[in-house]
């Protein structure tokens, strides 16, 4: 079980104490969802594109080994040094070894959810290496000693006034200045210093093309490009599922990615990296970290199709009203709730329940991951492995028993309604979770069943 106070529902309860803030958070993300809808509507073949993307990813997952070997061969021929990491620890050690070889204690990084998944920043900082995140949003949460609350919009939970205050503290901007343009300029000046002295630059990877041995990084700020073009060493970190067979398939994914993420037709920069510049070292670390295990699971395999667009976050009515940090995992939201249990079922046993199973996530997903179906299946897995409160188990076992026996069901119903009608003192208390903010349902004297018997004479 998870420690009391740290479950999604408890953290969400805390988040909901500031009602105005919840409403602001919800509206902000809903705005992004609406932008996504508008962008999708511009593409009459949107649903066919989603289907094509889904099929390409299915093909990748069915032939992952071959594509990875092909990619390695072509990338190496291009001059990229390939490293394989079985897990997060190996990934971090490989990255550290490369940095150490160059005797550097300061690196810059452009947003990579994989390095968040692996806890790279913390690992490197413990080795005495300063890591500067160069994406604006990521830098903001880094200055605040927080983790991203969203995979595409990492500081979406911060208001501009709060960012003004944070920059005042860390970057010396004038107190009370919350002008986004001014703050962005201040961040730009601050980051430029780091770009200029960054000898090693780490980036994530959006797509790696098996056919050509190249990889593609999509950003809006251009910071990944700036970082790696100035650095002597470029380390790209990638989960093994990010491979695509051919360059032409980018024509499907690049059309879907930014539209799904933010409603833009395409990210400002879709940068292709095929070989190091003269004198530069280019490394790629290919990380498994549980992906092979997931690949073997019929129920959960297709979560590996994810292209990290964040559309499921923006559409999720629960995410919008509970905030990314209530998911207590690197990747929050609906996709995080089906990925995290694969890493540690016990620690994340609450996340599959942080959903109404409304199915909106599944239907915005550009690669058609059956997210809400997987949430249902993870719930079964959580219970089977025993990571569930005894009280919940007892209540549901009893419910199951009652609903299995028509006579007991009828008697319980009659008794329950009688209590609701005559002893509201039992039900209308703070101990009754339903009643805290909702009135109890009506308790009619007669059930439908008994009405039918009386009126239809059966």
């Amino acid at each position: 079980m998870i420690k009391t106070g740290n479950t999604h529902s408890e953290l969400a309860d805390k988040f909901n104490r500031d009602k105005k803030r919840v409403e602001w958070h919800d509206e902000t993300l809903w705005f992004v969802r609406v932008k996504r809808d508008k962008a999708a509507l511009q593409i009459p073949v949107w649903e066919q594109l989603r289907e094509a993307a889904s099929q390409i990813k299915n093909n990748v997952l069915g032939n992952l080994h071959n594509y990875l070997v092909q990619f390695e061969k072509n990338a190496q021929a291009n001059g990229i040094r390939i490293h394989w990491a079985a897990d997060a620890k190996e990934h971090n050690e490989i990255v550290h070894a490369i940095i150490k070889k160059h005797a550097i204690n300061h690196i810059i990084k452009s947003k990579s959810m994989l390095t968040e998944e692996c806890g790279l920043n913390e690992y490197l900082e413990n080795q005495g290496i300063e890591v500067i995140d160069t994406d604006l949003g990521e830098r903001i949460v880094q200055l605040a000693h927080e983790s991203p609350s969203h995979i595409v919009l990492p500081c979406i939970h911060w208001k501009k006034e709060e960012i003004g205050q944070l920059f005042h503290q860390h970057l010396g901007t004038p107190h009370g200045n919350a002008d986004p343009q001014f703050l962005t300029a201040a961040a730009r000046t601050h980051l430029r210093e780091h770009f200029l002295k960054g000898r090693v630059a780490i980036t994530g990877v959006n797509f790696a093309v098996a056919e050509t041995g190249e990889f593609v990084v999509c950003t809006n700020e251009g910071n990944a490009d700036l970082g790696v073009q100035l650095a002597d060493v470029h380390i790209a970190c990638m989960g093994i599922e990010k491979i695509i067979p051919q360059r032409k398939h980018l024509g499907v994914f690049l059309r879907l990615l930014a539209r799904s993420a933010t409603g833009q037709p395409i990210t400002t920069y879709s940068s292709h990296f095929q070989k190091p510049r003269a004198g530069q070292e280019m490394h790629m670390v290919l990380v498994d970290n549980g992906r092979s295990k997931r690949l073997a699971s019929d129920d959960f395999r297709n979560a590996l199709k994810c292209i990290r667009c964040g559309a499921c976050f923006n559409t999720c009515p629960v995410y919008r009203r509970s905030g990314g940090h209530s998911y207590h995992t690197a990747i929050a939201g609906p996709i995080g709730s089906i990925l995290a249990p694969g890493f540690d079922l016990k620690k994340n046993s609450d996340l599959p329940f942080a959903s109404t199973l409304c199915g909106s996530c599944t239907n915005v997903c550009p690669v058609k991951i059956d997210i809400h179906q997987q949430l249902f299946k993870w719930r079964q897995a959580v219970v089977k492995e025993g990571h569930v409160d005894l009280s919940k188990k007892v209540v549901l076992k009893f419910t199951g028993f009652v609903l299995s026996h028509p006579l007991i069901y009828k008697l319980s119903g009659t008794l329950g309604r009688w209590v609701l009608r005559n002893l509201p003192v039992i039900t209308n208390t703070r101990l009754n979770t339903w009643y805290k903010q909702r009135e109890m349902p009506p308790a009619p004297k007669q059930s439908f069943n008994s009405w039918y018997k009386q009126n239809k004479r059966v």
Partner: protein
Amino acid sequence: MNIGLFIPCYIDQLYPQVGIATLELLEKQGLNVTYPANQTCCGQPMANSGFEHYTHTSNKNFIRTFADFDYIVCPSGSCTLHVKEHLYVANRKAQATQIRNKIYELTEFLTDVINLKALNASFPYKVGLHQSCHGLRGLHLAQMSELVAAPFSKPEHLLSMVKGIELISLDRHDECCGFGGTFSIFEEAVSVKMGQDRVADHLNHQAEYITGVDMSCLMHLQGILNRQKSPVKVIHIAEILNADK
């Protein structure tokens, strides 16, 4: 055509008038409807909480109760979807599959099976339609806003046959209400906030009634409306379609 009426447990116990309206509405269409008295529940409360293995006996009961009908009709999108997706008993696979294929939610039965063309119903009020998620995205009772596809709506099609009704438009026309079965208890804060937001959308557009195909969502919204002492009422779609008095 021999129709078995499946009245979900919470409708049976808490909202008998919805069962009555459903039965009357079907009978008005000249259909032969039977309500088998030994029915209980589709098993969803257990299954959605991760205890699908506790539904074995209730599933057996469901199959025993409904196997012999030509059609099964149910005034709930959520329970219908649950049966369609999850009804399973190891040694009764064929019967379970048949039931999965012949169970219909009420509005899809009226629209797709008997092709209802007209209704003698009147409901002169401003009504907000709450699109319950399982009916919408699971059974495709209407087009969901996530997809780039032609709009349609079976519940709206039926409501358009009702005299005097004024369907209001909503800012978010298919956002979840936050009920989610046991979610309403185990994630109380978010569940209630979602419900309050859904209610506010209807109130902002001057709804006098909130209707839908799922009384469970409506029960959650009713709890919130009543706590706010709002005069706005919830009403199941069957009650509106059957309102000819």
